[in-house]
């Protein structure tokens, strides 16, 4: 056993863990952020993707000890709003008026541009792959603000989705890229104004 500290979504988490603990297990079982999914445990599906100091990794293929002391962002860190616990989602209510954002007490404007684009463009069905898709695309779009559809497909080549057929995910990524460019331009002009 070895004691380690990681910062997860800005919060410092210290625990004594078995050396074999994967970063994925630390995030889910020790820190309690279950948004990061375990889909394969062999670096194939991408459901477990998180950022470590701003760089994307598959957390099922990294030991927690390899990233001791570093700062991790999970899907919960994308829009740090407090979501209401889910109470009344049943198959019945799903079939009727399913308003996922309402159910969570969330506001669309507080979502990360990728999250709101996924919502608008129907980029998820079961949602199992979504946390990984969001994290990989966030990392990718921040470095590549003007991708082609082909670029986006390559960026998510390590992420499997068994539901959507990927089309809507690519649509959402293109849409989010546009929103992120607008936001970045806005931030630049605000900075310029402040400089002047």
């Amino acid at each position, binding site marked *: 056993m070895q004691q380690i500290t990681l910062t997860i979504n800005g919060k410092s988490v210290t625990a004594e863990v078995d*050396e074999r603990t994967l970063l994925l297990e630390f995030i889910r079982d020790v820190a309690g952020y279950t948004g990061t999914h375990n889909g394969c445990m062999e670096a194939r599906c991408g459901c477990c993707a998180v950022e470590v100091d701003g760089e994307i990794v598959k957390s099922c293929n990294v030991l927690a000890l*390899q990233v001791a002391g570093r700062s991790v962002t999970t899907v919960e860190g994308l829009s740090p709003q407090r979501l209401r616990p889910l109470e009344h989602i049943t198959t019945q209510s799903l079939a009727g008026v399913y308003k996922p954002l309402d159910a969570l007490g969330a506001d669309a404007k507080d979502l990360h541009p990728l999250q709101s684009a996924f919502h608008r463009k129907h980029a998820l069905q079961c949602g199992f792959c979504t946390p990984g898709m969001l994290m990989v695309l966030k990392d990718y779009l921040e470095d590549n603000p003007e991708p082609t559809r082909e670029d986006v497909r390559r960026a998510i080549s390590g992420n499997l989705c068994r539901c959507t057929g990927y089309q809507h995910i690519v649509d959402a990524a293109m849409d989010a890229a546009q929103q992120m460019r607008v936001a970045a331009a806005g931030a630049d002009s605000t900075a310029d104004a402040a400089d002047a």
Partner: protein
Amino acid sequence: MKAFTFLAPEALDEAVALLDRHGRDARPIAGGQSLLLAMKDRIARPSVLVSLAGLADLRGWRYSPSGELEIGAATTYAALISAQFGGWHGEISAVAADLADRPVRTMGTIGGALCQADPRFDMPALAVGLGASVDTASAGGARTIPAAELFAASGGTVLGPGEILTTVRFPTLGAFSGVAFEKFRQRVFDAAVVSAVCGLRLDADARVADARIVLGAVAQAPVIAQRTGRQMTGRTLTEHDIAELGAAAMEEVLPVSQAMSSFHRYQRELVGVLVRRAITRALDQARS
């Protein structure tokens, strides 16, 4: 996974001493992208892991005074991509950018890929194809090994237990006028079914002064197609010549008599196609 102790030395000599002390039970871990998969399946069961991530000497790259490109063994693919090397060294960045996937490239290292020595991986074929060599350190001392001799014909590397690969050296920009790495894989993030590397130098009359052709994934270690390489020298290559060279490489590397299964026959066809593509692209680069 079997239980292990995790050690994180901060200097190379410390890492060498730790590996020496723990002998065959110890294994270096760089990015862990191959090793952790093997440990989860209990194919690898080290009882001590010595992390190379904290060794500053093993990260980054520099040009030696003679112009060789020296890349630290624990340099990640992501770092190789952002390095954007000049001249033909740029092919190293391009290859790093087109393998595995974005998250794996954050962790995976060039030295890890060479030491894992999976014949379908790109870096082994690239290193042999471009005439690289590697420096190693161990309790027994340091040595330099040409990449062509690093890989054992029966698979794996010739490194001893506890021997750390420290640097991968690529020759000077003058060594080649054009290089190209080509591969074929079923899906973007699969390992190569076949890969081919061509490195060539042209003389003042645009004739091939010397050339190397290397194939990956067709045997347990990268294969140098020596005969095909020799056939190229002294000639001004036309499209027709390149087609013949592709066919020659097929005969040399996977002759019909050895291509018994349908998979090997498929690989044989790919050798022809990829060698043609690699020569064409290397020539284009050399002539431009």
